[in-house]
């Protein structure tokens, strides 16, 4: 006694399939609604890029958030580590990086180091020609009488930095540069001992800081803004970030 199954009547079939499509459609639109999150480092580090820019371009207009693009990777990784250890003080940065493991910090540093973004001009304060000249002097020759080395003796002849740990100084906003030199003097920015930049900053007068920051910020960019190769300079001071362990002179 088997009951033969009656084929579905076309009308019912149409209704059923419409209903099925409606269901699929609803779930599809729900799925389309759901955020699609790419599994990329750029997406993961939204906490960094929202201030420093997706490509680490910073905020050249205000100079408040520094440019990260193209800075040497080891330099950037060191900064993150210094924020983590409290050597460099800025609460929002310390909070953001405090629990990230070294491998992740390194990956983030490499991401920004690899970004190629054109530099843009930043506003300059009104400074005298004499101050600019004094700044140029400090950049190229330093001030031997006060044992201030030339910027170029460590940061490269074109001031584009030196691999792996020395950042470039050209193309950076005046506000950022003068704030960093100030931070070294007040010990809110420091790094592993011997902290050669702290030594240099402590020998600069406030007027020198204005002069050198203005001169750096008003410099024309060289054609090649990449950092010089490792080992191409011999720093006049012992620097912990460059692997020195003894006292500087």
């Amino acid at each position, binding site marked *: 006694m088997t009951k033969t199954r009656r084929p579905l009547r076309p009308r019912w079939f149409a209704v059923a399939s419409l209903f099925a499509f409606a269901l699929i459609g609803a779930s599809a639109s729900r799925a389309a609604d*759901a955020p699609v999150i790419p599994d990329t480092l750029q997406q993961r580090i*939204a*906490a960094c890029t929202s*201030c420093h820019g997706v490509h680490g371009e910073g905020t050249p207009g205000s100079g408040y958030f520094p440019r990260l693009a193209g800075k040497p990777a080891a330099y950037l990784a060191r900064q993150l580590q210094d924020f983590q250890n409290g050597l460099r003080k800025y609460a929002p940065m*310390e909070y*953001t990086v405090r*629990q990230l493991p070294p491998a992740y910090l390194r990956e983030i540093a490499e991401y920004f180091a690899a970004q190629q973004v054109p530099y843009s001009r930043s506003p300059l304060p009104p400074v005298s020609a004499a101050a600019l000249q004094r700044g140029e002097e400090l950049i190229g020759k330093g001030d031997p009488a006060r044992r201030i080395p030339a910027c170029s003796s460590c940061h490269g002849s074109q001031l584009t930095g030196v691999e792996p740990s020395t950042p470039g100084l050209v193309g950076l906003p005046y506000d950022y540069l003068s704030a960093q030199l100030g931070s070294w003097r007040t010990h809110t920015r420091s790094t592993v001992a011997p902290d050669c930049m702290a030594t240099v900053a402590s020998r600069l007068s406030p007027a020198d800081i204005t002069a050198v920051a203005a001169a750096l910020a008003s410099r024309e960019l060289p054609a090649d803004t990449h950092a010089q190769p490792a080992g191409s300079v011999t720093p006049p001071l012992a620097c912990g970030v460059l692997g020195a362990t003894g006292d500087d002179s």
Partner: protein
Amino acid sequence: MKALRWLLLAVVLLIVALLAWWWFGGGHAPTPRSASKVSAATLADPQRIAQGRYLAIVGDCAGCHTAQGGAPLAGGRVIVTPFGDIPAPNITPDRETGLGDWSFEDFWQALHAGKGRHGELLYPAFPYTSYTRVSRDDALAMFAWLQSLPSVHQPDGKSSLAFPYSVRNSLKAWRALYFREGGFTPDPARSAEWNRGAYLVQGLGHCNECHAARDSLGGTPADVHLTGGQIPVQNWYAPDLGTRRHGGLEGWSAQDIVDLLKTGQSAKGAAFGPMAAVVSGSTQHMSDADLHAIASYLQSLPPRAAAAEQPVLFDAKVLTEQGGKVYTQHCAECHGKRGEGVAGVYPPLDGNSSVTEPSGINATRMVLLGGFAPATTANPRPYSMPPFAQQLSDQEVAAVVTYLRRSWSNQASIVRAEQVRASRHTPVD
């Protein structure tokens, strides 16, 4: 009449003497190592040392005793309290500045009774109120591990406590109110797993030190257990840990709890603020058995009373509407239009206890600070959230947080611009 005067004088002198004893008395000599009942061989046992290392991670000793960028357990981190700053001491085996001269008996007295080596009363920033439940065997293992560490010569910092808190004997009154020397008594009616969880949560884990409200004297009444509270000075809200009706973790499964403690995130929410540090430094390293034990215990916490009905204020509607616009513009892309989040990537906001906790401070500070989910072995490259402190005004943050707290299934109170302003000034360490 004269006799009466003499009697009165005698009574006054007696009271003064008693007060002096109360104020200055109570010291005693340390137990010298030579007189210790614990042999050097016991302390050198590698298995005990390994066990002690694990237990010290469970107790997150390094969370306080290791300074930012400092040598492990050499002290220096300053614990901020409403009464003043208390630097955590060096607990490496340095003889001059650490525990190098301590016997196990001295250590036990500190952990169990909250007394220093010379009998001085310890400030309860050191959570002996919880540690008093730690077993003697576990304390011995931790002591053995601490003594095996490299010694670091680093003198302890000075506390900045104001009078009368600067006088340690003022703690006699505090201890009479809030501290009972005790131990952990297993409940034979419960499973071994539950008892292990209760032991860890109430003792070494010292969860109640944050997850319960402190009163104006900085104490937690004995009957207040894991019902949530705002952490003084740090100003994060440590939520109620009940998983039953009206609990802060209502609806969390045992697996959700294990996931959060092990990976830093779960289907119900992610760890952030001080809890991110706890996950990263402590709970992610705990064994699965211990994590399940903790979950089993938390799931047994009793249901809570319903929160008082929030009066709907006249500006709630305006705030919520404004907040909805901010949400669409800045939040929906990651957290979803319905606050559903993205599994394993961004936490849901609908039904998230961190969003709906009573104070609103957690969501406010998350919006301001953003940041990464805890980096753990299970999630070594966490996703992150942008900080909005620079982009959004106090009013906009208040609006969007109000929107989060009153949308979908969430029914929490509104947050005002003044509260946001206050949160901009709180420390972020």
